[in-house]
Protein backbone atom coordinates (compact mmCIF):
# COMPACT_ATOMS: atom_id res chain seq x y z
CA UNK A 1 0.00 0.00 0.00
CA UNK A 2 1.35 3.40 -0.98
CA UNK A 3 1.49 6.12 1.63
CA UNK A 4 2.47 8.81 -0.86
CA UNK A 5 2.22 8.96 -4.61
CA UNK A 6 3.35 12.03 -6.52
CA UNK A 7 2.62 11.93 -10.24
CA UNK A 8 4.01 14.38 -12.75
CA UNK A 9 4.14 17.19 -10.19
CA UNK A 10 5.16 20.63 -11.34
CA UNK A 11 5.63 23.52 -8.94
CA UNK A 12 6.38 27.14 -9.70
CA UNK A 13 6.82 29.70 -6.92
CA UNK A 14 7.10 33.36 -7.88
CA UNK A 15 8.01 32.41 -11.43
CA UNK A 16 10.74 29.93 -10.48
CA UNK A 17 10.17 26.27 -11.31
CA UNK A 18 11.22 23.94 -8.48
CA UNK A 19 9.53 20.72 -9.57
CA UNK A 20 9.23 19.73 -13.18
CA UNK A 21 7.27 16.53 -13.74
CA UNK A 22 8.45 14.92 -10.50
CA UNK A 23 7.29 11.41 -9.60
CA UNK A 24 7.66 9.73 -6.23
CA UNK A 25 6.10 6.68 -4.65
CA UNK A 26 6.58 5.88 -0.98
CA UNK A 27 5.15 2.71 0.50
CA UNK A 28 3.56 2.73 3.94
CA UNK A 29 6.21 2.13 6.58
CA UNK A 30 9.08 3.00 4.24
CA UNK A 31 11.88 5.38 5.25
CA UNK A 32 13.30 7.47 2.43
CA UNK A 33 15.73 10.33 2.10
CA UNK A 34 15.49 12.98 -0.62
CA UNK A 35 18.90 14.48 -1.29
CA UNK A 36 19.77 17.46 -3.45
CA UNK A 37 21.85 20.58 -3.61
CA UNK A 38 20.95 23.56 -1.43
CA UNK A 39 18.12 25.60 -2.96
CA UNK A 40 17.03 22.91 -5.39
CA UNK A 41 13.55 22.75 -3.83
CA UNK A 42 13.70 19.62 -1.64
CA UNK A 43 11.74 21.32 1.10
CA UNK A 44 8.92 21.96 -1.35
CA UNK A 45 8.35 18.21 -1.58
CA UNK A 46 7.54 18.01 2.14
CA UNK A 47 5.59 21.25 1.94
CA UNK A 48 3.51 19.95 -0.96
CA UNK A 49 2.70 16.81 1.00
CA UNK A 50 1.39 19.05 3.76
CA UNK A 51 -0.44 21.29 1.31
CA UNK A 52 1.79 24.27 2.17
CA UNK A 53 3.50 25.04 -1.13
CA UNK A 54 4.22 28.73 -0.48
CA UNK A 55 3.53 31.74 1.67
CA UNK A 56 0.12 33.42 1.46
CA UNK A 57 1.08 36.02 -1.11
CA UNK A 58 3.46 33.90 -3.17
CA UNK A 59 2.43 33.27 -6.75
CA UNK A 60 2.22 29.47 -6.62
CA UNK A 61 1.31 27.11 -9.43
CA UNK A 62 0.97 23.41 -8.68
CA UNK A 63 0.12 20.77 -11.25
CA UNK A 64 -0.06 17.00 -11.01
CA UNK A 65 -1.31 14.62 -8.33
CA UNK A 66 0.02 14.48 -4.77
CA UNK A 67 -1.81 11.60 -3.18
CA UNK A 68 -1.26 11.18 0.55
CA UNK A 69 -3.08 8.35 2.33
CA UNK A 70 -5.54 8.17 -0.57
CA UNK A 71 -6.33 11.89 -0.73
CA UNK A 72 -5.16 14.17 -3.52
CA UNK A 73 -3.75 17.07 -1.52
CA UNK A 74 -4.25 19.90 -4.07
CA UNK A 75 -7.96 19.06 -4.22
CA UNK A 76 -8.56 19.00 -0.46
CA UNK A 77 -10.58 21.72 1.25
CA UNK A 78 -8.86 23.68 4.02
CA UNK A 79 -10.72 21.69 6.65
CA UNK A 80 -9.72 18.34 5.09
CA UNK A 81 -6.15 19.60 4.81
CA UNK A 82 -6.14 20.40 8.52
CA UNK A 83 -7.48 16.92 9.24
CA UNK A 84 -4.67 15.41 7.15
CA UNK A 85 -1.96 17.55 8.74
CA UNK A 86 -3.21 16.52 12.16
CA UNK A 87 -2.12 12.96 11.35
CA UNK A 88 1.26 13.97 9.93
CA UNK A 89 4.25 14.82 12.10
CA UNK A 90 6.73 17.33 10.77
CA UNK A 91 10.03 18.71 11.95
CA UNK A 92 10.79 21.98 10.23
CA UNK A 93 14.20 23.33 9.39
CA UNK A 94 14.69 25.33 12.60
CA UNK A 95 12.38 23.19 14.67
CA UNK A 96 9.36 25.49 14.41
CA UNK A 97 8.89 25.63 18.17
CA UNK A 98 6.45 28.25 19.44
CA UNK A 99 8.67 30.73 21.22
CA UNK A 100 6.19 32.06 23.77
CA UNK A 101 5.45 28.58 25.12
CA UNK A 102 7.72 26.41 27.20
CA UNK A 103 9.01 23.16 25.75
CA UNK A 104 6.46 21.10 27.63
CA UNK A 105 3.54 23.15 26.27
CA UNK A 106 5.07 22.98 22.81
CA UNK A 107 5.21 19.20 22.89
CA UNK A 108 1.65 18.99 24.22
CA UNK A 109 0.25 21.58 21.79
CA UNK A 110 -1.02 19.21 19.05
CA UNK A 111 -2.63 17.05 21.72
CA UNK A 112 -4.25 19.95 23.58
CA UNK A 113 -5.52 21.45 20.34
CA UNK A 114 -6.77 18.31 18.59
CA UNK A 115 -7.31 15.62 21.16
CA UNK A 116 -8.16 17.20 24.51
CA UNK A 117 -11.72 15.87 24.34
CA UNK A 118 -10.51 12.35 23.63
CA UNK A 119 -7.48 12.03 25.87
CA UNK A 120 -8.04 14.39 28.78
CA UNK A 121 -5.39 16.48 30.55
CA UNK A 122 -3.84 13.63 32.56
CA UNK A 123 -3.25 11.42 29.52
CA UNK A 124 -1.82 14.37 27.58
CA UNK A 125 0.66 15.06 30.37
CA UNK A 126 1.55 11.36 30.55
CA UNK A 127 2.15 11.19 26.79
CA UNK A 128 4.35 14.25 26.90
CA UNK A 129 6.39 12.79 29.77
CA UNK A 130 6.74 9.45 27.98
CA UNK A 131 8.01 10.94 24.72
CA UNK A 132 10.38 13.33 26.45
CA UNK A 133 11.76 10.51 28.57
CA UNK A 134 12.22 8.21 25.56
CA UNK A 135 14.15 10.97 23.76
CA UNK A 136 16.24 11.65 26.88
CA UNK A 137 14.68 15.10 27.20
CA UNK A 138 13.08 14.83 30.65
CA UNK A 139 15.17 17.75 31.84
CA UNK A 140 13.36 19.96 29.30
CA UNK A 141 9.93 18.87 30.52
CA UNK A 142 9.99 21.20 33.50
CA UNK A 143 7.52 24.06 33.38
CA UNK A 144 8.96 27.36 32.17
CA UNK A 145 11.86 26.23 29.95
CA UNK A 146 11.39 28.27 26.77
CA UNK A 147 12.87 27.42 23.37
CA UNK A 148 15.18 30.43 23.60
CA UNK A 149 16.92 28.80 26.58
CA UNK A 150 17.94 25.58 24.82
CA UNK A 151 20.46 24.82 22.11
CA UNK A 152 19.67 23.97 18.52
CA UNK A 153 20.14 20.25 18.96
CA UNK A 154 17.67 20.21 21.84
CA UNK A 155 15.26 22.27 19.77
CA UNK A 156 15.29 19.64 17.04
CA UNK A 157 14.77 16.83 19.56
CA UNK A 158 11.90 18.80 21.12
CA UNK A 159 10.39 19.34 17.71
CA UNK A 160 10.73 15.63 16.99
CA UNK A 161 8.96 14.88 20.28
CA UNK A 162 6.13 17.22 19.29
CA UNK A 163 5.87 15.58 15.87
CA UNK A 164 5.63 12.08 17.33
CA UNK A 165 3.39 12.66 20.32
CA UNK A 166 0.22 12.38 18.18
CA UNK A 167 1.21 8.99 16.65
CA UNK A 168 1.40 10.25 13.06
CA UNK A 169 1.29 7.84 10.12
CA UNK A 170 3.87 9.98 8.33
CA UNK A 171 6.91 11.85 9.64
CA UNK A 172 8.45 14.63 7.52
CA UNK A 173 11.95 15.79 8.41
CA UNK A 174 13.21 18.88 6.64
CA UNK A 175 16.99 19.32 6.93
CA UNK A 176 16.83 17.72 10.35
CA UNK A 177 20.51 17.93 11.20
CA UNK A 178 21.86 20.67 8.96
CA UNK A 179 24.82 22.33 10.63
CA UNK A 180 25.28 19.63 13.27
CA UNK A 181 28.53 17.85 13.94
CA UNK A 182 28.65 14.38 12.34
CA UNK A 183 28.18 12.61 15.67
CA UNK A 184 25.22 14.73 16.74
CA UNK A 185 23.68 14.41 13.30
CA UNK A 186 23.90 10.62 13.22
CA UNK A 187 22.48 10.32 16.73
CA UNK A 188 19.53 12.57 15.84
CA UNK A 189 18.96 10.67 12.59
CA UNK A 190 18.99 7.39 14.46
CA UNK A 191 16.29 8.63 16.84
CA UNK A 192 14.23 10.11 14.03
CA UNK A 193 14.34 6.93 11.96
CA UNK A 194 14.00 4.27 14.65
CA UNK A 195 11.98 5.71 17.50
CA UNK A 196 8.24 5.21 17.43
CA UNK A 197 6.37 5.90 20.68
CA UNK A 198 3.70 3.58 22.03
CA UNK A 199 1.05 4.68 24.47
CA UNK A 200 -1.43 2.97 26.77
CA UNK A 201 -4.39 4.62 24.95
CA UNK A 202 -3.36 4.73 21.29
CA UNK A 203 -4.95 7.24 18.94
CA UNK A 204 -4.19 5.23 15.82
CA UNK A 205 -5.93 2.04 14.80
CA UNK A 206 -4.38 -1.22 16.09
CA UNK A 207 -3.65 -2.47 12.54
CA UNK A 208 -2.18 0.84 11.37
CA UNK A 209 0.96 0.40 9.24
CA UNK A 210 4.33 1.39 10.63
CA UNK A 211 5.39 5.02 10.54
CA UNK A 212 6.49 6.29 7.11
CA UNK A 213 9.42 8.70 7.18
CA UNK A 214 10.64 11.19 4.57
CA UNK A 215 13.73 13.30 5.17
CA UNK A 216 15.35 15.95 3.01
CA UNK A 217 19.06 16.66 3.12
CA UNK A 218 22.06 17.98 1.28
CA UNK A 219 24.19 15.33 2.93
CA UNK A 220 23.43 11.73 2.02
CA UNK A 221 26.17 10.35 4.24
CA UNK A 222 24.38 11.12 7.46
CA UNK A 223 21.40 8.97 6.58
CA UNK A 224 23.16 5.99 5.05
CA UNK A 225 22.74 3.82 8.13
CA UNK A 226 19.15 4.65 8.90
CA UNK A 227 17.10 5.09 5.71
CA UNK A 228 15.89 2.28 3.49
CA UNK A 229 15.85 4.14 0.17
CA UNK A 230 17.46 7.23 -1.29
CA UNK A 231 16.12 9.62 -3.89
CA UNK A 232 18.05 12.26 -5.78
CA UNK A 233 16.44 15.59 -6.56
CA UNK A 234 17.97 17.20 -9.61
CA UNK A 235 16.62 19.72 -12.11
CA UNK A 236 13.14 19.51 -10.61
CA UNK A 237 12.92 15.73 -10.91
CA UNK A 238 13.08 12.97 -8.33
CA UNK A 239 15.27 10.01 -9.33
CA UNK A 240 15.45 6.90 -7.20
CA UNK A 241 19.03 5.90 -6.35
CA UNK A 242 18.25 2.75 -4.38
CA UNK A 243 19.33 1.50 -0.98
CA UNK A 244 22.54 2.10 0.98
CA UNK A 245 24.56 -0.26 -1.17
CA UNK A 246 23.34 1.41 -4.35
CA UNK A 247 24.33 4.83 -3.02
CA UNK A 248 27.81 3.67 -2.06
CA UNK A 249 28.27 1.88 -5.38
CA UNK A 250 26.94 4.75 -7.45
CA UNK A 251 29.35 6.33 -9.91
CA UNK A 252 26.93 9.17 -10.64
CA UNK A 253 28.85 12.41 -10.09
CA UNK A 254 25.77 14.05 -8.63
CA UNK A 255 25.41 11.36 -5.97
CA UNK A 256 29.14 11.42 -5.17
CA UNK A 257 28.86 15.16 -4.77
CA UNK A 258 26.14 14.78 -2.16
CA UNK A 259 28.11 12.08 -0.36
CA UNK A 260 31.38 13.95 -0.24
CA UNK A 261 29.99 16.79 1.82
CA UNK A 262 30.45 14.64 4.90
CA UNK A 263 33.18 12.13 4.07
CA UNK A 264 33.54 10.85 7.63
CA UNK A 265 32.35 7.20 7.73
CA UNK A 266 29.57 6.18 10.07
CA UNK A 267 30.94 4.86 13.30
CA UNK A 268 29.96 4.22 16.87
CA UNK A 269 28.25 7.26 18.30
CA UNK A 270 27.73 7.70 22.04
CA UNK A 271 24.10 7.54 23.10
CA UNK A 272 22.37 10.76 24.08
CA UNK A 273 21.77 9.38 27.57
CA UNK A 274 25.50 8.98 28.10
CA UNK A 275 26.07 12.59 27.10
CA UNK A 276 23.45 13.81 29.56
CA UNK A 277 25.26 11.85 32.26
Amino acid at each position, binding site marked *: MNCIEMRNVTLEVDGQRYLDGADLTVKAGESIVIAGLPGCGKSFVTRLI*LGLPGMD*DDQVTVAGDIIVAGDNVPELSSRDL*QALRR*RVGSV*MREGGLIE*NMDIRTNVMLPLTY*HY*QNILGPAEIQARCDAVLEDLQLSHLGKVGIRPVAINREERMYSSLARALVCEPFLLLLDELCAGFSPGSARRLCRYAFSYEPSFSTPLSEPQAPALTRIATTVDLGRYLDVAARFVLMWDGRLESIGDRAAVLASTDVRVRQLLDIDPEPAGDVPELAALHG
Partner: protein
Amino acid sequence: MGAFLTPFQALGQQVINSALDAWQLLQFSLGSLVALARFFSRNGFRASLKVTRQQVYFTGLEALPFLSLLSLLLGSTVLVQSLPQLRGVGAGDLIGKILVISIVRELGPIITAMVVITRSGTAMAAEMATNRITGQVEALEAMGVDVFHYLIAPRVVGAMVSMFCMIVYFDVVALVGGFLVASLKLTMPISVYLAQISDSLQPLDLYISLSKGILFGLVISLFSCYHGLRARRAPFEVPMVARSGVIQAMFFVFVSSAVISAGFYWI
Protein backbone atom coordinates in the same frame (compact mmCIF):
# COMPACT_ATOMS: atom_id res chain seq x y z
CA MET B 1 4.61 61.22 -24.00
CA GLY B 2 6.11 58.47 -21.86
CA ALA B 3 7.41 60.96 -19.30
CA PHE B 4 3.98 62.59 -19.26
CA LEU B 5 2.29 59.28 -18.52
CA THR B 6 4.64 58.15 -15.75
CA PRO B 7 2.96 60.03 -12.86
CA PHE B 8 -0.43 58.73 -13.98
CA GLN B 9 0.92 55.22 -14.27
CA ALA B 10 2.34 55.48 -10.76
CA LEU B 11 -0.97 56.79 -9.49
CA GLY B 12 -2.85 54.02 -11.26
CA GLN B 13 -0.50 51.42 -9.82
CA GLN B 14 -1.03 52.89 -6.37
CA VAL B 15 -4.80 52.66 -6.79
CA ILE B 16 -4.56 49.06 -7.98
CA ASN B 17 -2.28 48.14 -5.05
CA SER B 18 -4.62 49.81 -2.58
CA ALA B 19 -7.61 47.98 -4.05
CA LEU B 20 -5.78 44.64 -3.87
CA ASP B 21 -4.72 45.38 -0.32
CA ALA B 22 -8.30 46.20 0.64
CA TRP B 23 -9.51 43.00 -1.01
CA GLN B 24 -6.96 40.91 0.90
CA LEU B 25 -7.88 42.64 4.14
CA LEU B 26 -11.54 41.90 3.45
CA GLN B 27 -10.77 38.23 2.79
CA PHE B 28 -8.71 38.05 5.96
CA SER B 29 -11.47 39.72 7.97
CA LEU B 30 -14.10 37.34 6.61
CA GLY B 31 -11.91 34.35 7.45
CA SER B 32 -11.45 35.71 10.95
CA LEU B 33 -15.17 36.33 11.40
CA VAL B 34 -15.94 32.77 10.29
CA ALA B 35 -13.39 31.51 12.85
CA LEU B 36 -15.00 33.79 15.40
CA ALA B 37 -18.44 32.36 14.66
CA ARG B 38 -17.11 28.84 15.21
CA PHE B 39 -14.91 29.83 18.12
CA PHE B 40 -16.82 27.94 20.81
CA SER B 41 -17.93 24.98 18.73
CA ARG B 42 -14.63 23.90 17.20
CA ASN B 43 -12.16 21.32 18.36
CA GLY B 44 -9.29 23.15 20.01
CA PHE B 45 -11.62 25.61 21.71
CA ARG B 46 -9.94 25.16 25.10
CA ALA B 47 -6.49 25.86 23.70
CA SER B 48 -7.83 28.97 21.97
CA LEU B 49 -9.63 30.08 25.14
CA LYS B 50 -6.32 30.04 26.99
CA VAL B 51 -4.87 32.41 24.38
CA THR B 52 -7.98 34.61 24.77
CA ARG B 53 -7.47 34.85 28.54
CA GLN B 54 -3.86 35.86 28.02
CA GLN B 55 -4.95 38.50 25.51
CA VAL B 56 -7.50 39.99 27.93
CA TYR B 57 -4.80 40.11 30.57
CA PHE B 58 -2.26 41.87 28.32
CA THR B 59 -4.72 44.19 26.60
CA GLY B 60 -7.10 44.98 29.43
CA LEU B 61 -5.70 44.36 32.88
CA GLU B 62 -2.14 45.47 32.25
CA ALA B 63 -3.34 48.73 30.71
CA LEU B 64 -5.52 49.75 33.66
CA PRO B 65 -2.94 51.85 35.57
CA PHE B 66 -2.17 53.94 32.50
CA LEU B 67 -5.83 54.15 31.55
CA SER B 68 -6.72 55.26 35.11
CA LEU B 69 -4.26 58.13 34.90
CA LEU B 70 -5.55 59.24 31.52
CA SER B 71 -9.20 59.07 32.54
CA LEU B 72 -8.59 60.96 35.80
CA LEU B 73 -6.71 63.71 33.99
CA LEU B 74 -9.27 63.96 31.22
CA GLY B 75 -12.29 63.96 33.53
CA SER B 76 -10.87 66.58 35.86
CA THR B 77 -9.62 68.76 33.00
CA VAL B 78 -12.96 68.81 31.22
CA LEU B 79 -14.69 69.65 34.52
CA VAL B 80 -12.27 72.37 35.56
CA GLN B 81 -12.33 73.97 32.12
CA SER B 82 -16.03 73.78 31.37
CA LEU B 83 -17.86 74.26 34.68
CA PRO B 84 -16.69 77.85 35.36
CA GLN B 85 -17.48 78.78 31.75
CA LEU B 86 -20.96 77.30 31.96
CA ARG B 87 -21.64 78.95 35.30
CA GLY B 88 -20.45 82.22 33.86
CA VAL B 89 -23.29 82.15 31.35
CA GLY B 90 -25.76 80.67 33.82
CA ALA B 91 -25.71 77.20 32.27
CA GLY B 92 -24.06 75.27 35.10
CA ASP B 93 -26.82 72.65 34.91
CA LEU B 94 -25.52 71.57 31.54
CA ILE B 95 -22.31 70.14 32.99
CA GLY B 96 -23.79 66.63 33.12
CA LYS B 97 -24.77 66.80 29.46
CA ILE B 98 -21.38 68.15 28.44
CA LEU B 99 -19.54 65.39 30.31
CA VAL B 100 -21.72 62.61 28.98
CA ILE B 101 -21.38 63.75 25.38
CA SER B 102 -17.67 64.52 25.51
CA ILE B 103 -16.44 61.67 27.67
CA VAL B 104 -18.95 58.82 27.39
CA ARG B 105 -19.82 59.21 23.73
CA GLU B 106 -16.63 60.50 22.15
CA LEU B 107 -13.42 60.74 24.12
CA GLY B 108 -13.81 57.57 26.20
CA PRO B 109 -13.94 55.18 23.24
CA ILE B 110 -11.32 57.09 21.25
CA ILE B 111 -8.75 57.45 24.04
CA THR B 112 -9.25 53.84 25.09
CA ALA B 113 -8.78 52.80 21.47
CA MET B 114 -5.55 54.83 21.27
CA VAL B 115 -4.27 53.10 24.41
CA VAL B 116 -5.12 49.69 22.95
CA ILE B 117 -3.61 50.52 19.56
CA THR B 118 -0.33 51.78 20.99
CA ARG B 119 0.04 49.07 23.61
CA SER B 120 -1.62 45.99 22.17
CA GLY B 121 -2.02 46.69 18.46
CA THR B 122 1.69 47.20 17.97
CA ALA B 123 2.45 44.19 20.16
CA MET B 124 0.01 42.00 18.23
CA ALA B 125 1.39 43.08 14.86
CA ALA B 126 4.99 42.57 16.00
CA GLU B 127 4.18 39.18 17.53
CA MET B 128 2.38 37.98 14.42
CA ALA B 129 5.21 39.21 12.20
CA THR B 130 7.80 37.45 14.36
CA ASN B 131 5.71 34.29 14.37
CA ARG B 132 5.53 34.44 10.60
CA ILE B 133 9.19 35.21 10.00
CA THR B 134 10.49 32.56 12.39
CA GLY B 135 8.28 29.86 10.88
CA GLN B 136 6.01 29.47 13.89
CA VAL B 137 2.87 30.15 11.87
CA GLU B 138 3.91 27.52 9.37
CA ALA B 139 4.65 25.09 12.17
CA LEU B 140 1.12 25.59 13.49
CA GLU B 141 -0.34 25.08 10.02
CA ALA B 142 1.76 21.96 9.57
CA MET B 143 0.28 20.57 12.80
CA GLY B 144 -3.22 21.08 11.43
CA VAL B 145 -3.91 23.99 13.76
CA ASP B 146 -6.34 26.49 12.25
CA VAL B 147 -4.37 29.75 12.42
CA PHE B 148 -7.54 31.83 12.24
CA HIS B 149 -9.04 29.88 15.12
CA TYR B 150 -5.94 29.65 17.29
CA LEU B 151 -4.06 32.89 16.58
CA ILE B 152 -6.53 35.45 15.25
CA ALA B 153 -9.91 34.71 16.84
CA PRO B 154 -8.60 34.66 20.45
CA ARG B 155 -6.94 38.03 19.92
CA VAL B 156 -10.08 39.48 18.36
CA VAL B 157 -12.27 38.17 21.19
CA GLY B 158 -9.72 39.31 23.77
CA ALA B 159 -9.48 42.79 22.29
CA MET B 160 -13.26 43.18 22.02
CA VAL B 161 -13.87 42.06 25.60
CA SER B 162 -11.01 44.24 26.83
CA MET B 163 -12.20 47.32 24.94
CA PHE B 164 -15.74 46.88 26.25
CA CYS B 165 -14.57 46.63 29.86
CA MET B 166 -11.95 49.36 29.49
CA ILE B 167 -14.47 51.85 28.15
CA VAL B 168 -16.83 51.22 31.07
CA TYR B 169 -13.87 51.60 33.43
CA PHE B 170 -12.66 54.75 31.67
CA ASP B 171 -16.09 56.40 31.84
CA VAL B 172 -16.57 55.62 35.52
CA VAL B 173 -13.09 56.78 36.53
CA ALA B 174 -13.27 59.90 34.35
CA LEU B 175 -16.70 60.94 35.62
CA VAL B 176 -16.34 60.06 39.32
CA GLY B 177 -12.58 60.21 39.81
CA GLY B 178 -12.36 63.30 37.64
CA PHE B 179 -14.88 65.02 39.87
CA LEU B 180 -12.93 64.10 42.99
CA VAL B 181 -9.77 65.57 41.53
CA ALA B 182 -11.59 68.64 40.25
CA SER B 183 -13.24 69.17 43.67
CA LEU B 184 -9.89 70.42 44.90
CA LYS B 185 -10.53 73.47 42.74
CA LEU B 186 -14.32 73.57 42.30
CA THR B 187 -17.11 73.80 44.81
CA MET B 188 -19.98 71.57 43.83
CA PRO B 189 -21.72 68.98 45.99
CA ILE B 190 -21.13 65.45 44.67
CA SER B 191 -24.80 64.58 45.08
CA VAL B 192 -25.76 67.41 42.71
CA TYR B 193 -23.03 66.38 40.30
CA LEU B 194 -24.06 62.73 40.26
CA ALA B 195 -27.72 63.68 39.84
CA GLN B 196 -26.86 65.79 36.80
CA ILE B 197 -24.80 62.96 35.32
CA SER B 198 -27.52 60.36 35.86
CA ASP B 199 -30.17 62.71 34.41
CA SER B 200 -28.04 63.29 31.33
CA LEU B 201 -26.92 59.71 30.77
CA GLN B 202 -29.34 58.00 28.39
CA PRO B 203 -29.24 54.36 27.24
CA LEU B 204 -28.36 55.67 23.78
CA ASP B 205 -25.12 57.15 25.14
CA LEU B 206 -24.15 53.77 26.50
CA TYR B 207 -25.07 52.00 23.26
CA ILE B 208 -22.94 54.43 21.27
CA SER B 209 -20.00 54.16 23.63
CA LEU B 210 -20.02 50.39 24.00
CA SER B 211 -20.76 49.63 20.36
CA LYS B 212 -17.79 51.80 19.45
CA GLY B 213 -15.71 49.86 21.93
CA ILE B 214 -16.63 46.49 20.47
CA LEU B 215 -16.12 47.72 16.90
CA PHE B 216 -12.75 49.31 17.72
CA GLY B 217 -11.59 46.16 19.51
CA LEU B 218 -12.53 44.09 16.47
CA VAL B 219 -10.86 46.40 14.00
CA ILE B 220 -7.67 47.05 15.98
CA SER B 221 -7.02 43.34 16.48
CA LEU B 222 -7.92 42.41 12.89
CA PHE B 223 -5.76 45.13 11.34
CA SER B 224 -2.84 44.37 13.64
CA CYS B 225 -2.95 40.63 12.96
CA TYR B 226 -3.44 41.15 9.24
CA HIS B 227 -0.45 43.44 8.87
CA GLY B 228 1.65 41.30 11.21
CA LEU B 229 1.03 38.19 9.16
CA ARG B 230 1.95 40.01 5.96
CA ALA B 231 5.59 39.99 7.03
CA ARG B 232 7.45 37.47 4.98
CA ARG B 233 11.00 36.55 5.71
CA ALA B 234 13.06 39.30 7.31
CA PRO B 235 13.12 40.85 10.81
CA PHE B 236 13.34 44.38 9.39
CA GLU B 237 9.72 43.96 8.31
CA VAL B 238 8.49 43.83 11.93
CA PRO B 239 8.47 47.61 12.62
CA MET B 240 7.14 48.26 9.12
CA VAL B 241 4.08 46.05 9.51
CA ALA B 242 3.51 47.29 13.06
CA ARG B 243 3.49 50.86 11.77
CA SER B 244 1.07 49.97 8.96
CA GLY B 245 -1.29 48.29 11.42
CA VAL B 246 -1.21 51.26 13.78
CA ILE B 247 -1.82 53.85 11.08
CA GLN B 248 -4.67 51.92 9.50
CA ALA B 249 -6.31 51.18 12.85
CA MET B 250 -6.03 54.83 13.96
CA PHE B 251 -7.50 56.03 10.69
CA PHE B 252 -10.41 53.62 10.97
CA VAL B 253 -11.05 54.50 14.62
CA PHE B 254 -11.30 58.23 13.96
CA VAL B 255 -13.38 57.93 10.81
CA SER B 256 -15.77 55.30 12.16
CA SER B 257 -16.15 57.18 15.43
CA ALA B 258 -17.22 60.27 13.52
CA VAL B 259 -19.55 58.24 11.28
CA ILE B 260 -21.19 56.43 14.21
CA SER B 261 -21.66 59.66 16.16
CA ALA B 262 -23.09 61.42 13.12
CA GLY B 263 -25.37 58.45 12.45
CA PHE B 264 -26.78 58.45 15.96
CA TYR B 265 -27.07 62.24 15.89
CA TRP B 266 -29.24 62.13 12.78
CA ILE B 267 -31.32 59.30 14.22
